[in-house]
């Protein structure tokens, strides 16, 4: 496969650690965003969840395949977070993990399949489409950009960098949107003008993935 070596358990663990660090750092910011159009707990929720994930990672020995690491992380989020983001991100990581199966390491195309499975899981559970002002608005563009980048022959690193900035654009694009899913939808037009907290945490998680793979080389 082209564009640098494959991704392995190492990378996945680095991804989750980087995500946990970013979410912890941005915890209060995410909660403030949620205060504006939700119930002021998104930062606390994600931070609580990924802190629990880190603890779980300690228990795993080095030999656990990357897919297993992700399903474990997803299950942990489901049992620790609650709210909307718990089941959604929990399902996302579990589906991604299942897609990877038990292989020791994997390449770009498997990563695309994994993220695709994650998105499908989120949409199955939450029934949100792009434009509904949810995490989907940051996840879907990331996946598209990754796929396009790789198809266009870019390296995994470069494709992920593109995915990350696409995710950020998607996050910013939620500002003018009127929410039609989740708590923010209760606000109707008053949800316009605020950035969606879940899209924001999603952009952080994608950025963490890009960073984790980048550090490979």
């Amino acid at each position, binding site marked *: 496969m082209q564009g640098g070596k494959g991704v392995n358990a190492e990378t996945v663990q680095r991804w989750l650690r980087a995500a946990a660090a970013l979410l912890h750092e941005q915890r209060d910011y995410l909660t403030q965003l949620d205060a504006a159009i*939700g119930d*002021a707990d998104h930062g606390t929720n994600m931070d609580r969840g990924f802190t629990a994930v880190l603890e779980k990672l300690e228990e795993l020995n080095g030999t656990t395949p990357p897919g297993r690491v992700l399903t474990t992380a997803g299950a942990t989020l489901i*049992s*620790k*977070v*609650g709210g909307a983001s718990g*089941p*959604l991100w929990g399902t996302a990581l579990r589906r991604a993990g299942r897609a990877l199966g038990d292989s020791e390491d994997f390449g770009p195309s498997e990563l695309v399949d994994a993220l695709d499975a994650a998105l499908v899981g989120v949409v199955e559970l939450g029934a949100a489409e792009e434009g509904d002002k949810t995490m989907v608005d940051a996840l879907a563009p990331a996946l598209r950009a990754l796929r396009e980048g790789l198809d266009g022959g870019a390296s995994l690193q470069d494709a992920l960098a593109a995915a990350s900035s696409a995710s950020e654009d998607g996050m910013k694009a939620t500002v003018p949107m009127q929410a039609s899913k*989740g708590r923010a939808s209760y606000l109707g037009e008053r949800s316009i003008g605020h950035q969606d907290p879940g899209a924001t945490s999603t952009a952080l998680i994608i950025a963490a993935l890009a960073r984790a793979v980048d550090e490979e080389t």
Partner: protein
Amino acid sequence: MSVTETATGMKKFINEPEDVVKESLQGLGAAHPDLVRIDLKNQIVVRKDAPVAGKVGLVSGGGSGHEPMHGGFVGKGMLDAACPGEVFTSPVPDQMLAATKAVDGGAGVVHIVKNYTGDVMNFRLAAELAEDEDIRVESVLTNDDVAVEDSLWTAGRRGVGVTVLTEKIAGAKAEAGGSLEEVAGIARKVNAQGRSFGVALTSCVTPAAGAPTFELGADEMEFGVGIHGEPGRRREKIAPVAEIVEQMSEAILSDLDPRRGSNLLAFVNGLGGTPLIELYVIYNELTKQLERRGLTATRSLVGNYITSLDMAGASITLLTLDDELTALWDAPVQTPALRWGT
């Protein structure tokens, strides 16, 4: 971090914000050992004598910060178990599964779920897990808040005050030996015949944030507020209570549309920071509004039952009664927060 360090705007009796829910549960258990037991590990409140063999189990849950709902409604004649999540965050499937197993007396378990994305998703995952363990589960959604339009463009109406009435009435039905379908059926009927509307005079302050969730001017109120500090339909200048109650009644009754002469259960609920003296003033205004429309409140409930932490505000819930619902409402109940009969 201790309260003294985070004190600004944080006028709360707490230790560490992250311990509030567990410590409050311990207090609930210590104060009412005759009615409930606390499973701290799973963070659930269980009826003292659960599971009751042959009785349909009734489980509810949701974010904390709405006390006495739901933990205060666990006991004979109402809930068999409650799953409190973190403050304003729905509980997790593990809690719901543990509660479901703890109360299953062989006749199946009804989940009463308030219509919020998080609650719905987590209860859905829990129901799947329970069914994997061969426990029959019926889920009932409450969505009575007319402040939110129930359209394709929203997550649907929120579940608020009617949840309390649903838990009481379905609990009585289960106590009376109703089947899984019957208990779920009566719960759905209560939800279908009840509507609510809430108004906030101040924002609540969550222990985690330590500051108001939203800012309201000194002379402003949030009209159509949710129980998590979600802003409502619109912001208005505070008006005399007669005007406020007229608008609330109008919003509820134009949607519920009971026929003239109907008997209602009138529930005036405090959101946590509004004193009882004002809730009875609201009730007084409400009876005038009902009279004007040829309606009678044959049953009433006035007090803080489904709250939003320390928010100053109130909600009104109206439920159309028939003989069956009235009898089930009057049936004995023995919980920390609702007690009558024996």
